[in-house]
């Protein structure tokens, strides 16, 4: 860190050595239950630190241990190893059992995001009750996304970082079977025969949003 080869670019204060930066990241990640973004780490650590490198090192260090460093969206968290869940029965909080409607709605939002209420209803073939959406929002698993550029500018739903965290997903691309579903055309918003014009407008917008959501 304190090499003299770039004297002009040096910060006024030298960054702490990488070992020290690892300790800092370790302390910050351990201190909180929620994932911490690299941006936040940078903000909290002394000037000149490189949290991304520290995380990479730390991640290796915790490989195979009782707790691991996991990626959640663009943030990082420490979580107990999946195989040790049996030790933790005391800690499990009885979660409210989700209705089938809620589970399906959640899956549809996750796989089709950003998705409007009308689209969810079309896929499920029934109307989505307010309570179902409310419950998922309350769980902080879905949230409102951007409005669609279609007539009426309906709001969309997308999944949250909390959703990724809860289901141990690095990002929404890691959803089980996502690729297969896509290649089978089952994630297309195929309009019913005779309603092509509307469908095209939707498609264009969807691509735009998808790029934004699914980028690494």
């Amino acid at each position, binding site marked *: 860190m304190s090499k003299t080869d770039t004297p002009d670019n040096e910060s006024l204060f030298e960054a702490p050595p990488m070992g020290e930066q690892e300790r800092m990241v370790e302390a910050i990640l*351990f*201190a*909180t*239950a*929620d994932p911490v973004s690299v941006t936040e780490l940078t903000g909290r650590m002394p000037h000149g630190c490189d949290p991304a490198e520290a995380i990479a090192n730390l991640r290796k260090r915790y490989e195979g241990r009782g707790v691991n460093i996991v990626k959640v969206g663009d943030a990082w*968290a*420490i*979580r*107990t*190893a*999946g195989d*040790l*869940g049996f030790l*933790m029965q005391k*800690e*499990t*909080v009885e*979660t409210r059992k989700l209705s*089938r*409607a809620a*589970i*399906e709605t*959640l*899956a*549809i939002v*996750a*796989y089709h995001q950003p998705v409007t209420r009308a689209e969810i209803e*079309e*896929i*499920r*073939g*029934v109307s989505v009750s307010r309570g179902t959406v409310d419950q998922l929002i309350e769980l902080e698993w879905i949230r409102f996304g951007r409005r669609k550029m279609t007539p009426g500018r309906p709001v969309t739903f997308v999944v949250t970082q909390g959703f990724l*965290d*809860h*289901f*141990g*997903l690095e990002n929404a691309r890691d*959803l*089980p*079977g996502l690729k297969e*579903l896509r290649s*089978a055309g*089952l994630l297309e918003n*195929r309009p*019913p*025969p*005779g309603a092509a014009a509307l469908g095209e407008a939707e498609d264009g917008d969807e691509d735009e949003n998808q790029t934004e959501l699914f980028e690494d």
Partner: protein
Amino acid sequence: MQGEDFQEDAVSVSERVAAEALIVDVGAYEGPLDLLLTLSRTQKVDLRQISILALAEQYLAFVEQAKRLRLELAADYLVMAAWLAFLKSRLLLPPDPSEEGPSGEELAAHLAFQLERLEAMRNSAAKLMARDQLGRDFFARGITEDVQRVRRVTYTATLLDLMQGYARIRTRDDFRPFVMDRQHVMTMEQALERMRGLIGFAGDWTDFATYLPDGWDVDPQRRRSTTAATFAASLELAKEGKVEIRQGETFAPIQIRKKVPGDE
């Protein structure tokens, strides 16, 4: 299910039980599409090869049966029945080139797509819920140092606060007067010692204030202390017969002079 042959006398007991189970469970279906998906499973084929025509017939038979049992069916079940009857007629009749709109095949393909998509979402939902879940299979930090307290007002104290607090109480009575005030306090003994040294040179009447030590006249606390001590020391010296004290009138300067022995 046997399509339209849903005559009571023509079905076996087990089939009737199955049919009735289907009917009785009508409340368990989440709408016509859900029911269609369930019915389609009885065809025991890949959804992509499903016979939409057979499915439409099953559905219509179901609705007929429900009517016969005088079950209340929601409006959308009846709408779907009407639509499927239309679809069925389109699929059975040869296409009419003059007719506008999508063909029977296109409509059937879309229904098949919808069923397949719904089933895919059901499977995905199941896969999702089968994943390890936070708080059930893997766990977050149990002792968070901050986040949970963020919203509340928290009170903190450091070990030093604690130590200082304790030391403050335990030393208040014993040490404080000496430790805290000594440098701002002049005792009469100190003043007396000082006066004894100075008084030998004071032959004539001199303002008492000139006996105050340098540097003690700015800070009010020190000035008060040194004034009181010096005055008390003067009285003491007067008592000893070493000095004389006089004051012209109230609040006038107090003057001191050395008492010459025999000068009565």
